[in-house]
């Protein structure tokens, strides 16, 4: 059938530079390139191009420029090119539009409307390079008070995890991402003293040696779960929802369930791995309490149990219920949180920005006097150390990052993860592609990211005259808003710049 779609991107090849080495052809996993032997020229199927830039980066003579196609429909604020093109796709297929990565719509990015304070005169800024500057973070329930009995401190010993920096790698399952990517995350978390999250796709046996740096998920699909799985990890996370697709489940197509994935997920090779929308043992908050305590029982009360939800309208009340149900850590994933595959209509329209949800939840938990009962981890749209600092000052204990980790591994956010053809070898199971992520190089790239962001966090702490991250946590006086309306500042609990 003739498609009415126009190619989204143009391949601009400088024929003077091209040496017909065919690297582009071998590198492109979307079948854009071919070689015309007779004329010794490269030929293009531009309609297949996703602008992942793999070919442009690897072209030895810099002959390729991938550009946005300049085609235009009549200017229309309502019927944009994207709206028309999406509609045509659906009329041609009758299907739900799929996409990958987080919401790319221009909703207000609150991080960019928040500014950070610095010390001048009345207290000294602290030099992070030469004076101690502490980022160490503990996640888990904290006692409301301690007691001294007979000269000795007595305390309830709640399970906790320790991080060298308040940055963790968010849940990305083996299946959604390749084995090498998954292993790189595990190794980097281990090397830097933080945690990575297995997602719900099980946990390969040979990576269990990184158990003290691993969070395992218990999601609605319950893949690869046995008692060892829980007890080998540092923390267990119940996944209720995900920022990119609140309220729905997931689906790893059978063709991706290879032998090793089948072993890891403990399902037959080639069968679809389906995650139901809800946990069918949780239809209400008291059911969540039951599952939390089942996991505590299964781990002998030695591991903190976290519960992850997506940021939705009444998150503060939900969070309060989760804390009261016994969650040691609550994770909130915002509107811009990433995904391997999600219906575009959900990704772009459901949920709220993490900044607002985070502030509202922290405020609510404090108002109720239960903020100590659980740690608060946020994710979804964190792009740099400034965002992390702001998240912590708004009240978060730590953050999860997913997309930044993938970008460190090579990702260019082309949003085609759901196709399984990732040319960078990250969100694919094709053995020809997956070897493009080298675990040694990948691990180093991730460690570099953690190191660079940690150094920057220390600079931000030091300039505010603070030498320990716990003095930033919830310290909203370190923040000021700019370009925000009063309701927004009220929700964020910050004042305006100059106020």
């Amino acid at each position, binding site marked *: 059938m003739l498609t009415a779609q126009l190619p989204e991107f143009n391949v601009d090849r400088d024929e003077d530079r091209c040496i017909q080495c065919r690297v582009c052809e071998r590198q492109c996993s979307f079948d854009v390139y071919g070689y015309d032997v007779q004329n010794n020229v490269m030929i293009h199927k531009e309609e297949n191009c996703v602008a992942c830039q793999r070919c442009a980066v690897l072209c030895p003579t810099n002959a390729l420029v991938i550009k946005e196609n300049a085609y235009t429909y009549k200017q229309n604020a309502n019927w944009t090119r994207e709206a028309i093109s999406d509609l045509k796709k659906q009329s041609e297929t009758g299907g739900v539009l799929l996409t990958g990565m987080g919401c790319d719509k221009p909703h207000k990015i609150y991080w960019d409307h928040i500014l950070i304070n610095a010390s001048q005169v009345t207290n000294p800024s602290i030099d992070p390079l030469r004076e101690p500057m502490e980022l160490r973070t503990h996640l888990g329930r904290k006692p409301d008070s301690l007691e001294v009995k007979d000269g000795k401190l007595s305390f309830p010993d709640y399970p906790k995890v320790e991080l060298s920096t308040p940055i963790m790698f968010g849940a990305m399952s083996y299946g959604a991402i390749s084995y090498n990517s998954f292993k790189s995350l595990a190794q980097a978390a281990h090397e830097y003293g933080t945690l990575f999250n297995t997602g719900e796709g099980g946990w390969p046996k040979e990576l269990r040696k990184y158990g003290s740096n691993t969070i395992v998920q218990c999601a609605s699909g319950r893949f690869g779960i046995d008692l060892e799985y829980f007890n080998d990890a540092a923390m267990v996370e119940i996944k209720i929802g995900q920022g990119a697709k609140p309220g729905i489940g997931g689906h790893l197509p059978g063709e991706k369930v290879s032998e090793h994935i089948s072993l890891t997920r403990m399902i037959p090779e080639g069968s679809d791995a389906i995650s139901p929308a809800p946990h069918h043992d949780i239809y209400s908050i008291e059911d969540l309490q039951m599952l939390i305590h089942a996991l505590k029982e299964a781990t002998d009360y030695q591991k903190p149990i976290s519960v992850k939800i997506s940021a939705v309208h009444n998150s503060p009340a939900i969070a309060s219920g989760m804390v009261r149900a016994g969650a040691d850590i609550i994770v909130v994933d915002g509107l811009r949180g990433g995904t391997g595959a999600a219906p575009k209509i959900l990704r772009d329209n459901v949920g709220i920005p993490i900044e607002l949800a985070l502030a509202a939840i922290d405020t609510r938990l404090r108002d109720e006097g239960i903020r100590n009962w659980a740690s608060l981890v946020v994710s979804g749209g964190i792009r740099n150390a400034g965002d992390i600092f702001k998240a912590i000052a708004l009240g978060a204990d730590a953050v999860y990052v997913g997309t930044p980790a993938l970008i460190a591994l090579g990702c260019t956010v082309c949003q085609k993860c759901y196709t399984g053809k990732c040319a960078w070898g990250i969100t694919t199971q094709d053995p020809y592609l997956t070897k493009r992520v080298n675990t040694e190089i990948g691990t180093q790239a991730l460690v570099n990211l953690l190191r*660079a962001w940690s150094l920057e966090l220390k600079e931000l702490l030091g300039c505010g005259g603070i030498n320990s991250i716990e003095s930033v946590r919830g310290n909203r006086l370190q923040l000021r808003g700019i370009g925000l309306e009063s309701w927004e500042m009220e929700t964020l609990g910050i004042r305006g710049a100059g106020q």
Partner: protein
Amino acid sequence: MNTAQAKKANPRKGLSPRQWIKIDASGMYYKDLNRQIRGLAEQGARKFDLQNVYGQRYIGTNLWATERDKIRIRVHGTPGSDMGAFMDGPEIEVYGNAQDATGNTMNCGKIVIHGSAGDVLGYGMRGGEIYIRGNVGYRVGIHMKEYDDKIPTIVVGGTVQDFFGEYMAGGRIIVLNKFFEGNPPVRQSYFIGTGMHGGNIYFRGDVNIEQIGAEVNVIEPTDAEWKIIERYVHNYCKAFDLGERKVKLLKREKFWRLYPKSTRPYGMLYAY
């Protein structure tokens, strides 16, 4: 004696540079005290004996444009903070303890303290010498620097507290760790030489790796460096009237030289 009185006493020929002029600083505001010293110096006086000093700041600071390298000041009591700040030439001897920020950004001259001194001694010091009989507080020798023939030197007879020699960019500090007090146990300090990128610290006694900054190397001093240590310990003994024979004993003591691994400790810190 105030400036006016001094003028009256020596209306024409000025004051004798050899005579010690006594000043009772009791209850005196620092500004008045320092102005008085300067006034007398402008009339030719060069030696000042300050009695009952309690916290007056900036002693020795404003003696520029006089024959400053001949000026000597004795301080009895407890001088205030910033003693010898920006000082350029005079010699101060304190019979007691000094407070914080002694020798702040000092350029030239000498300070001898018979007691101990507080925090941030020798901050940004560019030249001259400071001898302390007792202990010193936090962040001593912070960002000392050297250029050409100007090499500031500090000798501490006692112990040092944390962040000693922080960001040190030049000069030398010798720490005797109570050698002349019969080697009593000393308190361990931490974060020694964090950010050090120039100069040398000569430290008597053992230094554990966890006490020093990541930018610091530890090595035994060379013979040439020993000569420097000896020279300044000799000066130290002279300043405090200690038997010089003891300097010889020092040779058997273990000294460590702490020096920066690199003049650019943060070269690898930044992305391209």
